[in-house]
């Protein structure tokens, strides 16, 4: 069974600084998807970034980028020039390349951006 582990329950960083959130996962599959989702106090889960395991190039979305290390089964999220609106719970997640929408989430990292 696949598992997703986030070892940082909570982090704080000053506005405009760079922060990295860690994630490791376990799977025997060779092709899959990895995600970072953001959940602000409004509760709605928002997709931040997606990585296909068959792509060696790390995904980037504006201030958000990932460091995907397939052999090490590591998938960290870097937020550059952090903003107050980045304050939220961040979940690392895994999804198989099969036919259903089952996403396996980690327990999350609560990120505080301090003014």
């Amino acid at each position, binding site marked *: 069974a696949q598992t997703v582990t986030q070892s940082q329950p909570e982090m704080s960083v000053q506005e405009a600084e760079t922060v990295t959130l860690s994630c490791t996962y376990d799977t025997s599959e060779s092709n899959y998807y990895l995600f970072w989702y953001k959940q602000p106090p409004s509760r709605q*889960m928002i*997709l931040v970034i997606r990585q296909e395991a068959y792509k060696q190039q790390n995904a980037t979305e504006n201030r958000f980028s990932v460091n995907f290390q397939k052999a090490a089964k590591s998938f960290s999220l870097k937020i550059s020039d952090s903003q107050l609106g980045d304050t939220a719970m961040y979940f690392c997640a895994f999804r198989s390349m099969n036919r259903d929408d089952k996403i396996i989430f980690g327990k999350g990292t609560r990120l505080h951006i301090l003014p």
Partner: protein
Amino acid sequence: DAGVTQSPTHLIKTRGQHVTLRCSPISGHKSVSWYQQVLGQGPQFIFQYYEKEERGRGNFPDRFSARQFPNYSSELNVNALLLGDSALYLCASSLRVSGANVLTFGAGSRLTVL
């Protein structure tokens, strides 16, 4: 375009009761998935429905059931509620069943069981 809408947003039930939660997907989306998020945890997959058929089921007891209607909206039903069923229930919709799908989540229904 309206996003994924869920109702009710909050509700309180007592042990043993039954609850029905509703979800309307984004227009054009044919797949609906349900997740349970217990406080302090990540969401856990409960069900996926596509074209009114169950396409995936998580590790939840038979007290949990769901269905999808011809307009692609969905209901999640939970019978014989337990205190441990207290959680945020999230609905997500997507265009089709595919690993490349992007799921769009609703804001959830917060269920409290007393």
